[in-house]
């Protein structure tokens, strides 16, 4: 028999998840509570582990590419992009400009789709019901473009090692420009709903504060790091594809709280629109495939390549032993590393704020667990 009953206990352990709508998948958080305040927490993950890295060792380089789509399944395009670029780096292959700009257009559309999904669900978690309907309506337009381009809406497998499988369909440029035209006023609309909304401000200001020093110590990247005031975006500091040839700004926050991260992502959506417009302008006719043989057999060696995925730094560490199968593929997922900071962000806050912080970290469990 326990000496004290639960009602007398000053500290209480509760489980949040794995079946909980606000954990965005199958995340389980063990919370230690004092009343409604969080004293500490521990994440239990792995419910969606599929052994993606093991699968890679048993597939050829080209065969593994579709598997990458299934990690961050709401941003499949950028996942695939990171992988094919890593293998291209290993092969030392140049990708023609038309393929580069197409990749950038689709990657930025994917960033928009990912941020729209984040905004809708994050607001829904905090009790704002309206935005989710709007953001999914806009996201649908992006998925339609993907579908017209490669036949798939979510797990697109849009790119191949060396370039593109498909050239653009007639009218993709117009579709993209029309969508940009359509989206910008919609972003203003979301801001009207939330940015100065008193309930929204009360729920997000000062919640889940992450200082710049803590963010770096815990390896946090992406919008979360920028929300803490560090101007760091891989597209700017170590450009890949043709990101060094387009103009865009890197928005940052000041306080590192949930509200700042919201502002950062909203601003990023506007910058993505800017990038898409510039890329579409430069889509000149030309080849879409670099010099890659039918059999992909890279020289022995190791490369690490990372891109700015919607959620942060997505890195691929590929080790080749000179055969047709990768010897080892390590995926450095942004969600997994960012989730580590959850514990220090929610200490001292209320249980309801845990939901806000999980939302603001923008995690996808398919990527955390791989």
């Amino acid at each position, binding site marked *: 028999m326990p000496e004290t009953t639960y009602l007398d206990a000053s500290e209480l352990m509760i489980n949040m998840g794995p079946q909980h709508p606000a954990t965005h998948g199958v995340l389980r958080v063990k919370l230690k509570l004092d009343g409604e305040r969080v004293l500490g927490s521990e994440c239990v993950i*792995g419910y969606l582990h599929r*052994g993606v890295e093991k699968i890679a060792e048993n597939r050829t380089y080209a065969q593994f590419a579709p598997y990458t789509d299934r990690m961050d399944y709401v941003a499949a395009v950028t996942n695939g992009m990171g992988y094919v670029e890593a293998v291209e*780096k290993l092969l030392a292959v140049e990708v023609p400009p038309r393929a580069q700009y197409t990749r950038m257009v689709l990657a930025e559309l994917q960033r928009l789709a990912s941020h729209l999904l984040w905004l809708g669900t994050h607001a829904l978690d905090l009790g704002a019901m309206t935005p989710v309907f709007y953001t999914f309506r806009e996201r649908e337009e992006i998925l339609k473009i993907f579908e017209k381009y490669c036949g798939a809406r979510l797990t697109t497998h849009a790119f191949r090692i060396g370039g593109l499988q498909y050239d653009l369909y007639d009218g993709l440029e117009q579709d993209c420009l029309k969508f940009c035209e359509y989206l910008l006023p919609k972003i203003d609309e979301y801001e009207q709903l939330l940015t100065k909304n008193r309930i929204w401000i009360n729920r997000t200001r000062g919640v889940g504060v992450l200082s710049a020093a803590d963010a*770096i*110590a815990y390896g946090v990247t992406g919008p979360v790091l920028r929300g803490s005031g560090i101007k*760091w975006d891989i597209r700017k500091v170590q450009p890949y594809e043709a990101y060094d040839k387009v103009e865009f700004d890197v928005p940052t926050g000041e306080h590192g709280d949930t509200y700042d991260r919201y502002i950062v992502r909203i601003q990023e959506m506007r910058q993505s629109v800017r990038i898409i417009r510039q890329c579409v302008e430069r889509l000149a006719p030309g080849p879409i495939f670099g010099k890659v043989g039918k059999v992909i057999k890279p020289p022995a060696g190791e*490369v*690490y390549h990372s891109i700015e995925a919607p959620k942060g730094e997505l*890195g691929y560490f590929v*080790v080749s032993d000179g055969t047709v199968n990768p010897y080892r593929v390590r995926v450095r997922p942004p969600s997994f590393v960012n989730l580590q900071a959850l514990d220090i962000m929610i200490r001292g806050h209320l249980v309801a704020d845990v939901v806000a912080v999980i939302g603001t970290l923008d995690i996808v469990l398919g990527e955390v667990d791989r």
Partner: protein
Amino acid sequence: MDALQKAFPGAIQEAVVFRKMPSITVAKESLLALCHFLRSEEGGAYTLLTDETAVDYPKREKRFDIVYHLYSFERNDRLRLKVLVAAAEPLPSVTEVWPAANWLEREVYDMFGVVYEGHPDLKRILLPDEWIGHPLRKDYDILRQDAAWVKSNLGIESGQ
């Protein structure tokens, strides 16, 4: 690089550059001191531990490559650090240098069975705690699984 050689004579076993990325193999004994140095200002301020992982070469005497990817905001530079360890050989944890290593080292422990010394909470992270075996080792077949665990927890003969 020269500063590293000077500060840690004999610690650097190999230094190569492949596809513009420098990679340094260091002795296990000097790993912690070297990491502290790299994180400091004079060492290049590699304040961000991007990734830590392992690669298994079962035929070697020291079968695991433990691979660290570091990033310096000041220099805008990436550096790969490697340490070689044998199967049951403990390795100092770098969590005291970069707290980000916590989960990354737990994953390496989970997938490869590499044991870290000084890690605050070394246990499995992706697989269930009671699971037997380390799946990313090369001698762990892709179809293999912990049949006893699967049977007692999922109530099925095989997950395949």
